[in-house]
């Protein structure tokens, strides 16, 4: 295998940086939307080059990650170890490529590193490693680890009397892991209002639909019964995501965001197709996908 970087033309990712609220809501939404488009372009090229990846679940979660990293989270490259930083834990660690590309777009990771994705000795493992990549908050990959860690992170903030925020992004299939339900109880018990769990509710898992495997519904009722404030949102509507994530918390209550998404969004031939969980697009499929991601 050649170690030389392979970059699909037209997929270079500029450092967009974080946009502040002072720009105005319209400009913020436009910044996130364009960021998400460019992140998808880079991500699919990374997967193609690595010959591995999880394009379906990455494309479903990119709008969520872009909204958080390009605007909502109070973090910057200079203070990734600041105890007062906001935190995001990507619990569905198989979407690592999306996380790395988003970190690069946000100016938190050198975009050149993206060319090493999954190559020998790369810092960019197929699942994120906090000991290798500053900005990664938890080593995930086995599903069902992120929420308990996020609860601990939020609990530390509460003990510090801090208003810093903790976000954790989960897959819906992932919620079949019992560890999540233990952590949901712990978070409500400790009244962790600065904790937000975001479920990428794309209704597919690795090999089938969630509803055909081990159904989650009624998910909102379950989360409410576990003591969480539940919000449902279109997970591809940047404005709606922005409003959801910037709303003040409900006192004493953690927030459970069900982001309704489509696996493989917005690519016509990938959308809601279970095969694209970890199928790797060939050169023609990459070109077709890039064509669909041509216009802002």
């Amino acid at each position, binding site marked *: *295998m050649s170690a030389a970087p392979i970059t699909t033309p037209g997929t270079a990712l500029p450092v967009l940086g974080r946009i502040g609220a002072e720009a105005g809501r319209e400009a913020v939404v436009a910044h996130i939307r364009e960021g998400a488009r460019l992140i998808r372009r880079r991500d699919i090229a990374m997967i193609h080059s*690595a010959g*591995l990846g999880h394009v379906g679940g990455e494309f479903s979660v990119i709008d969520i990650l872009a909204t958080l990293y390009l605007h909502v989270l109070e973090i910057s490259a200079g203070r990734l170890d600041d105890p007062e930083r906001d935190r995001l834990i990507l619990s569905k*660690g198989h979407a690592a490529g999306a996380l790395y590309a988003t970190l690069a777009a946000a100016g938190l990771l050198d975009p050149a590193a993206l060319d090493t994705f*999954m*190559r*020998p*000795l*790369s810092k*960019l*493992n*197929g*699942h994120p*490693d906090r000991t290798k990549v500053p900005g990664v908050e938890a*080593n*995930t*990959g*086995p*599903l*069902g680890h992120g929420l308990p860690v996020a609860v601990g992170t939020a609990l530390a903030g509460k003990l510090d009397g801090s208003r810093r925020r903790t976000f954790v992004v989960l897959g819906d*299939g*992932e919620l*079949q*892991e*019992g560890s999540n339900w233990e952590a949901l109880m712990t978070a409500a018990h400790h009244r962790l209002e600065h904790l937000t769990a975001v479920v990428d509710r794309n209704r597919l*898992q*690795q*090999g*089938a639909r*969630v509803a055909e*495997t*081990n159904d989650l519904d009624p998910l909102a009722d379950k989360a409410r019964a576990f003591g969480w404030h539940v919000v449902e949102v279109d997970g591809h509507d940047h404005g709606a995501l922005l409003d959801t994530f910037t709303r003040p918390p409900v006192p004493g209550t953690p927030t459970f965001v069900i982001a309704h998404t489509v696996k493989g969004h917005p690519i016509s031939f990938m959308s809601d197709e279970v095969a694209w969980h970890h199928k790797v697009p060939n050169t023609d499929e990459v070109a077709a996908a890039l064509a669909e991601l041509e216009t802002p």
Partner: protein
Amino acid sequence: MTTSTTQPVLHDCRDAYAATLIELAQADPRVVVVVNDSVGSSKLGEFKRRFPDRLINVGIAEQDMVGVAAGLANGGKIPFVSAASCFLTARAMEQIKVDAAYSNHNITLCGMSPGMAYGELGPTHHSIEDLAWLRVIPNLTVVVPSDPAETAQAIRWAADHSGPVFVRVSRMGVPDVNPAGYRFAPGRATTLRDGDDVTIVANGTVVAPALDAAHELSHLGITARVLSMPTVKPLDVEAVVAAARETAAIVTVEEALTTGGLGGAVAETVVQHHPVPVRFVGVPDVFAPTGSARWLLEHFHISAAGIVEAARLALGR
């Protein structure tokens, strides 16, 4: 790499595994499979098509999966649990210990794509601790088959055996290494090549490089015995002690950590019965970097060249 001109045909052992499960299910209605969203990664699509009610997919929930299997065994079924080895062993360890092993149920735990098979996905997905973890659990038989024939036979044996069994099922291409007419039996090693100077003990995907290493050692005037050791537990103590008595040193080779797995089992036996130098080929006590399985095996010298080097060091020549 081998010097032979014809490349051997390489097999994905999941094919023999899945075919054997279908044969067992046809012959015995008690045979059921329990999975964690792992139908495709276990190559059980055909099983699911033929026996839709007898493939229980609990979703992404490994503790549930092994507990449910124990309940199925209690209810008179013969459950095979089929999941990526990394999640099956790490996530459901207490269920394996208590619900399968301590409860002494007839459950076969089938660890898919163990070792370095998921190399690029990183240490969360490398299943190189499994042999060390499982070897210490009483009642549990731990099998690491080396080729399709041994995989199929181990699965058949496990279905009949009353007690918990773990079987590693590799996706990494392996040649046929066992002789025609080979019969798997737990606790029985096979001498694949005889020699007097050093013994190489291997199992799973690394039996083939062990044979290559023995071939290369012969060019250096060193004759190596190659023992294929399909069960890490029970170990073939007699074969290991004979190797210690009859050859000057032992090299163990495993697609796993060198701490606690096959090497640990062999060393424990050797020091108690007939101490000779032992060297371990495998992954040392580290979280491995990312990289393809092939790259990682070379990186850690789990290769014919690495085995030759270990044998020379063990013999001091």
